[in-house]
């Protein structure tokens, strides 16, 4: 295990040279980029001032190292799991997401969830389950692949029999068939839009709950491949600009389906490696756009997937210690620039905290700290040892033990037989019309 107490990469002499070169041609892109760099510089110089004060006591010295504000984040998460302000009205159709973002953040922080609240989450998610299968954004809403993904992940994090038993596997399978398109893609919900997120959501829940049938993902890999573009990354649908979130979803889905080699892994690797910002240390979502803490997971999280895929493909030149991105730089970005002192993490300095960014900044921090898998494990912790987070599974983004446990449980059950069934409706019928 490697512990980096100092020096920080962002304190190095060469760091300022990494700032954006606009060649004297100012455009909206370069102006915005330079604004962000200025704000990062501000953050770094404040840290530097603290760091250069005399270390008269050991206590003082530890305060000057980048510190993950564990207690503050814990309080923020603990509260949010029960109560959210009206600022969250905009996420009223994403409440399973809130469960997942908070529970995953807690598991990364290795904070246990009290049994009572875990049971309450189960009961709530049961109310979000649609009578026709899949989970909705809230009670009596229509089923949608995104909250379905989030609900299944949240239940797997809880990992009790009660949690697993909530999922109606037969209905879930029929929901997946109901959103499947002839060209291999999936719509996000009945009457909804298609994009590559849906394939990841479907593949994730189907593989965890053991409901994959031979035809469920027919033509899906071909469709995902068609989303890879001239840049090397994947867009939301064929033709669109390469984007971190969509690229993660496509790649992870392909890994689940065992078809990752259909993608051009080399150009994907070049694309994602190029998304790490030389000055900020964090990742951008698209070429020539701004850094954002959440891409610490969507982008950096691709490197473990690529590493594994290349290794499977017989590559003997892969590193045995490090991912193919600058792990230290990413950790510094998250720890110095993405923490709210009152708890919670965020996009970049000046932005507000939220549970989505808390989840994905912490997930990215975990990816940057942990190289390898069960057999081969190499840690690189920036700052104090207490900054260490639990490792996360690179495909599902829940802890690997929870993945193994869920798969073990559901593989004891038979794969449901797909059938076209009209579900009886507890809430109403209108939402189920196409």
């Amino acid at each position, binding site marked *: 295990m490697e512990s980096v107490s100092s020096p920080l990469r962002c304190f190095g002499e060469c760091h300022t040279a*990494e700032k*954006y*070169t*606009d*060649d004297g*041609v100012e*455009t*909206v*892109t370069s102006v915005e980029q330079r604004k962000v760099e200025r704000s990062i510089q501000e953050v770094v110089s404040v840290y530097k001032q603290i760091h250069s004060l005399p270390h008269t006591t050991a206590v003082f010295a530890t305060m000057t190292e980048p510190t993950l504000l564990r207690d503050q984040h814990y309080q923020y998460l603990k509260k949010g*799991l*029960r*109560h*959210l*302000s*009206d600022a969250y*009205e*905009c996420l*009223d*159709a*994403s*409440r399973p997401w*809130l*469960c997942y973002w908070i529970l995953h953040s807690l598991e990364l922080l290795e904070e246990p969830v009290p049994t009572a*609240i875990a049971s*309450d*989450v189960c*009961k*709530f998610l049961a*109310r979000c389950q649609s009578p026709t299968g899949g989970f909705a*954004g*809230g*009670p*009596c*809403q229509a089923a949608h692949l995104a909250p379905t993904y989030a609900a299944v992940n949240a239940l797997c994090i809880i990992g009790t029999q009660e949690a697993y038993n909530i999922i109606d596997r037969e209905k879930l399978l029929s929901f997946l068939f109901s959103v499947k398109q002839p060209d291999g893609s999936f719509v*996000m*919900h009945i009457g*909804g*839009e298609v994009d590559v997120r849906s394939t990841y959501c479907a593949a994730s829940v189907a593989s965890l709950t053991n409901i994959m049938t031979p035809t469920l993902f027919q033509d899906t890999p071909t469709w995902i491949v068609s989303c890879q*573009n*001239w840049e090397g990354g994947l867009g939301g649908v064929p*033709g*669109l600009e390469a984007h971190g979130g969509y690229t993660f979803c496509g790649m992870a889905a392909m890994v689940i389906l065992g078809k990752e080699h259909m993608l051009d892994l080399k*150009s994907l690797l*070049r694309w994602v*490696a190029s998304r*790490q910002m*030389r000055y900020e*240390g964090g990742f951008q979502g*698209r*070429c*020539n756009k701004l850094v954002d803490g959440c891409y610490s997971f969507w982008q950096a999280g691709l490197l473990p997937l690529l590493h594994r895929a290349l290794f499977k493909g017989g590559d003997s*030149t892969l590193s045995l210690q490090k991912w*193919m991105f*600058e792990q230290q*730089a990413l950790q510094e970005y998250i720890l110095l620039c993405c923490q709210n002192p009152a708890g919670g993490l965020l996009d970049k300095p000046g932005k507000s905290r939220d549970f989505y960014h808390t989840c994905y900044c912490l997930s990215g921090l975990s990816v940057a700290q942990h190289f390898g898998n069960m057999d081969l494990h190499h840690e690189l912790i920036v700052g104090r040892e207490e900054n260490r987070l639990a490792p996360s599974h690179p495909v599902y983004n829940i802890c690997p033990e929870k993945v193994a446990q869920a798969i073990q449980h559901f593989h004891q059950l038979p794969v449901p037989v797909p059938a076209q069934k009209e579900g009886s409706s507890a*809430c*109403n019928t*209108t*939402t189920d*019309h196409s």
Partner: protein
Amino acid sequence: MYRDRKEWADLEPVPQDDGPNPVVKIAYSDKFTDVYDYFRALLKNDEKSDRALLLTAEAIELNAANYTVWHYRRVLLQALEKDLREEMRYITAIIEDQPKNYQVWHHRRMVVEWLNDPSEELEFIAEILSQDAKNYHAWQHRQWVIKEYKLWDSELEYVEQLLEEDVRNNSAWNQRHYIISHTTGYSDPAILNREVQYSLKQIKKAPHNESVWNYLKGILQDLGLSSHPGLLEQILELKETHCSPYLLGFLVDIYEDFLENTLEHHEEVLSKALELCELLAREKDTIRREYWSYVGRSLQTKYGSTSNRLIWIHSH
């Protein structure tokens, strides 16, 4: 409040049932609770009426991401045979206000499909892009409209205008690729050459613009970077006055393509490629140190002679 309105007195509001011990409980405002209690009531009764349509607009205003409400609104529009032109005006206003929401763009697409009328689309999307030239939903909608209704003709001109305004707009570069791939294609040497020249021109203006370098590689990689006559020489020339980590990476790509496709000068080309990987890893693109080291090792393994291979790998 709906609860106080006479015209709604016949409907019993349906409170949200989160259960006895709720989690992720949102402290809804009074207004929010009121509107959604009545929305749930409408849904329960499967009511199809004008007042229901009006209520969906209020529900949307409170949470435009509620896809259940949008779906219901579409059901109502069809059932009540509403004026879709008016719906276009409505969705135009909503998108202007909340252009980064999935549901609003999907709804617009549905209305355009029902009307089978894309005539307002390119202008509308251009207006949204004038406020945020990289809005992903806007570009997605734009690509769909153009493909569906075959509106390719003036798009390259539009892309050039956007690149004139911001040569670093990666979405515009992507659109450029989209248009050309779906119209003339890149196999015509005249087209390919035009695009290469256009790219080199933009490189000279702003050498540190990653988008144009990616575009240049993107359009040449199928044919092979080493196959384009004189390109290597042009890049080596640019290296003197317009160098950047992107140029150096591009050189690595050209050399790699040479190694892949020619048998002569292998050792010389390989050594140049390895030298560049080293330079990038050590000095010019250190954030990608691990990546460039890997590229070097891979090239050495694939193209190196056994003895050199072992020496090189062990030193990296």
